[in-house]
């Protein structure tokens, strides 16, 4: 420890012996104060200078404190000093010795909370207690309603009482764990001020940047033009194998197949047999061809995916994938650029279909279960070995 320079009291004493006695006594006092300082500074990280001056007032038993509501109370010095803020006030500014110079506590400390805090200090001050005892006390201590716990955390923080801040913070963390955002909001009376967009993180652009809106409008226009051009093309085309039906037609086609489950089965069988043949040839030539086409398309692609994605990324607040709120997707929110009348039609048809699925389920179940028996046999492939081999690749390591 470095030397602390105290001003040696001027002694009006010429006797060498007595001078020596006084020096020894003085050094003893310095030692004690150094020890006290070591103790306090370890607990509270107070600066050296704070500890440098120990006033005689320190030895008084009671300290006066004024809380946020204006009321003034006294508390044993020992206990008050446990709080670093109060300690500083006493030592640095010499406050608290009397009613008139009561220490003003921060706003966040109300009288009720203060007495709670002092209960805590009073318990932990006592040196003889075991860790187990202290832990048990702490656990009981934080059992209170959340509002009070928050006030306590806040007050402890303002008084810089770190052990209590840790204890209350952990208790708050335990309250928060395992809860949904709504529950947390309710418990802590927090505002629900994140917008739907911020919660769900859509791709659509949330900025007001006019350049981006213009860009989007231009692209939408270009897309519509291309669609038109293709529709015209399909009218002219002689071959039927390229399917350029509009979305409408597709959906009615799909819905139309509703009554014919066997239709699906047979197409699946055909597909399976076809695939079996293909499996034996290496379809590398096919993959090559498709790669080339893909490149060409991309090369002629007018979109610049990078730039738009970046812009959107930069301007929107992002959530990682697992942050997605488990909310039911609200169709109405999404503006995906499909012509609204068409969109409504799609929505209606899909909803209608869902309803139909639900309503005629019992009869359909019967139908399917009874027809299930004979269908089983047609699904088994005659090529037992290949079938098993394909299935067995399922068991590569762990299913």
């Amino acid at each position, binding site marked *: 420890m470095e030397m602390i320079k105290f001003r040696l009291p001027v002694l009006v004493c010429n006797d060498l012996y007595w001078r020596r006695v006084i020096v020894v006594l003085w050094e003893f006092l310095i030692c004690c104060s150094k020890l006290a300082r070591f103790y306090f500074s370890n607990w509270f990280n107070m600066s050296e200078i704070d500890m440098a001056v120990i006033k005689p007032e320190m030895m008084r038993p009671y300290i006066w404190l004024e809380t946020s509501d204006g009321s003034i109370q006294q508390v044993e010095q020992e206990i008050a000093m446990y709080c670093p803020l109060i300690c500083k006030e006493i030592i640095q500014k010499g406050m608290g010795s009397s009613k008139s110079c009561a220490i003003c506590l921060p*706003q966040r400390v109300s009288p009720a909370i203060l007495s709670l805090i002092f209960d805590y200090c009073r318990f932990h001050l006592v040196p003889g207690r075991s860790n187990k005892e202290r832990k048990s006390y702490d656990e009981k201590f934080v059992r209170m309603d959340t509002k009070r716990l928050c006030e306590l*955390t*806040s007050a402890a923080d303002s008084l810089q009482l770190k052990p209590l801040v840790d204890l209350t*913070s952990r208790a708050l*963390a*335990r309250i*928060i*764990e395992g809860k*949904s955002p709504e529950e947390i*909001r309710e418990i*802590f*009376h*927090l*505002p629900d001020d*994140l917008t739907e967009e911020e919660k769900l993180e*859509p*791709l659509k652009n949330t900025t007001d940047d006019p350049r981006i809106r213009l860009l989007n409008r231009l692209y*939408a226009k270009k*897309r519509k033009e291309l669609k038109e051009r293709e529709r015209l*093309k399909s009218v002219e085309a002689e071959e039927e*194998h390229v*399917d350029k*039906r509009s*979305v409408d037609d*597709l959906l009615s*086609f*799909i819905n139309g197949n509703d009554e014919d489950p066997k239709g699906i089965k047979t197409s699946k069988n055909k597909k399976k047999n076809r695939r079996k043949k293909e499996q034996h040839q290496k379809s590398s030539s*096919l993959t090559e*061809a*498709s790669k080339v086409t*893909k490149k060409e398309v991309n090369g002629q692609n*007018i*979109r*610049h995916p*990078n730039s738009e994605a*970046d812009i*959107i990324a930069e301007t929107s607040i*992002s*959530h*990682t*994938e*697992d*942050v*997605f709120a*488990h909310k039911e*997707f609200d*169709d109405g929110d*999404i503006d*995906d650029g*499909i012509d609204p009348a068409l969109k409504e039609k799609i929505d209606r048809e*899909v909803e209608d279909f*869902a309803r139909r699925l639900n309503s005629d389920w019992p009869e359909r179940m019967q139908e*399917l*279960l009874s027809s*299930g028996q004979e269908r089983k046999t047609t699904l088994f492939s005659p090529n037992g070995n290949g079938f098993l081999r394909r299935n*067995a690749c*399922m*068991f*590569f390591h762990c*299913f």
Partner: protein
Amino acid sequence: MAYTFSFPEEVLEHVFSFIESERDRNAISLVCKSWYEIERWCRRKVFVGNCYAVSPVMVIKRFPELRSIALKGKPHFADFNLVPEGWGGYVCPWIAAMACAFPCLEEIRLKRMVITDESLELIAKSFKNFKVLVLTSCEGFTTDGLAAIAANCRNLKELDLQESEVDDLSGHWLSHFPDSFTSLVSLNISCLGNEVTLSALERLLGRCPNLQTLRLNRAVPLDRLPNLLRRCPQLVELGTGVYSTEMRPEVFSNLEAAFSGCKQLKSLSGFWDVLPSYLPAVYPVCSRLTSLNLSYAIIQSPDLIKLISQCPNLLRLWVLDYIEDAGLYNLAASCKDLRELRVFPSDPFGLEPNVALTEKGLVSVSEGCPRLQSVLYFCRQMSNAALHTIALNRPNLTRFRLCIIEPRTPDYLTHEPLDSGFGAIVEHCKDLQRLSLSGLLTDRVFEYIGTYGKKLEMLSVAFAGDSDLGLHHVLSGCDNLRKLEIRDCPFGDKALLANAAKLETMRSLWMSSCSVSYGACKVLGQKMPRLNVEVIDERGPPDSRPDNCPVEKLYIYRTIAGPRLDMPGFVWTMEDDSSLGLSDHAVD
């Protein structure tokens, strides 16, 4: 007024620092604007379940103080070779972005991703305090990349290459750990093909006093194991190398003595090519064992019984079906604390059963082990009655994966579908999170799953169901479903389109060899801009076939990063109208 109104930010941050789980952190960030802000600045760990759901830039922007990141790439069915080579899952853009943005990054955990040597070198150079590298089922790198990590990461604690495919050029990479390197806590090289320089390994083990996990590869000979063990007697988890050598008494006693010296050993694995007479060498540690992985050990039932009956504290057992019903009965009697059981098939391609393992083994374990939570069981026969019994015995099951080897196998007693058996499982096991189905199943089982599987998060289905109703039940009923993977089921467009909204609440949906048409994929892609609808078809562009033609494979996942740009030639993302540009029609 908010109770936390008076809190300064640091206090809230301090509260948040005690909250670690991803779900809780996500919940916090959705509470209100101020909590969102505070949380994002103090988030240190993030888990991205699908690397294409979000872009690196977005993650970096939102969490500027990250220290740890976990990413998953390919879908689970990649493990069964259903995802063609080259599909994607490249981690390079992530590493490149993080190298600039997160100089303090400490941990990278990847699963089913492709990582190159260049990325490994970049990691080694960019992150001064790099501590943890876990590559599970990854590929694309060689031992040169590992050498770079070894040479440059001064504070490395964990290097774990679980089940990755590594191009093993030379075992010399291990010697790149400098002599001053002592921080290793965990090393898993079990997937490497070549022998590592054993002397270098011995020296490494000797100077790392905190080493707790060591998983060796098959090439490490058994007679060198005692020496290695003596260098690190504090080991908690050990994976042996090959477990046989010529029979010599001194090898055995040496081995036994070395094992006796490992007083903390709790987990054992490895055991390639086991010579049963060497098994008793591990008996000194058996009483403390909590985890035993014998999935490579070709040991017959009597030897297995002898070994397992010495391990009363076993929590987790992975074993081949050589254990047979008798062994499982014994397990149920000896290991009352068992939590997880995995029984793998020794001969999955054989047409006839080669072992006496039936549903009875599983039933006896479900009776005898009250804390059993997680089951993966390969067998050849099952009955509804057995499943009912298991369900009633063990309502605390959280993971139940049953794999009856022959697809569409009915109840062997009644020849009925196994609907009611699986129905009992979902009905009674209310906390079931993961379920894999097999055997003969109709739409009814999906009705049960939709009705009762409210906590179900992951469902794997193969060769099951009769119609779209099945899929509809699952998508409309399972509120917490996150991952659904389906192969060879007669599910088509309707259920998918009717439940399109559900797909945005899930991480991903995989459907292969089903009946979903290209047209439906296009509609889905158009209607749902926050989904990537990937059509994987090795027959060529789907546009060259009619719209009602079913696609080979379909992978749908939610994303806020838009369509990905690194697709190979056999993958097409269905465009939504809000993204720019064309579908795959060429522009004239």
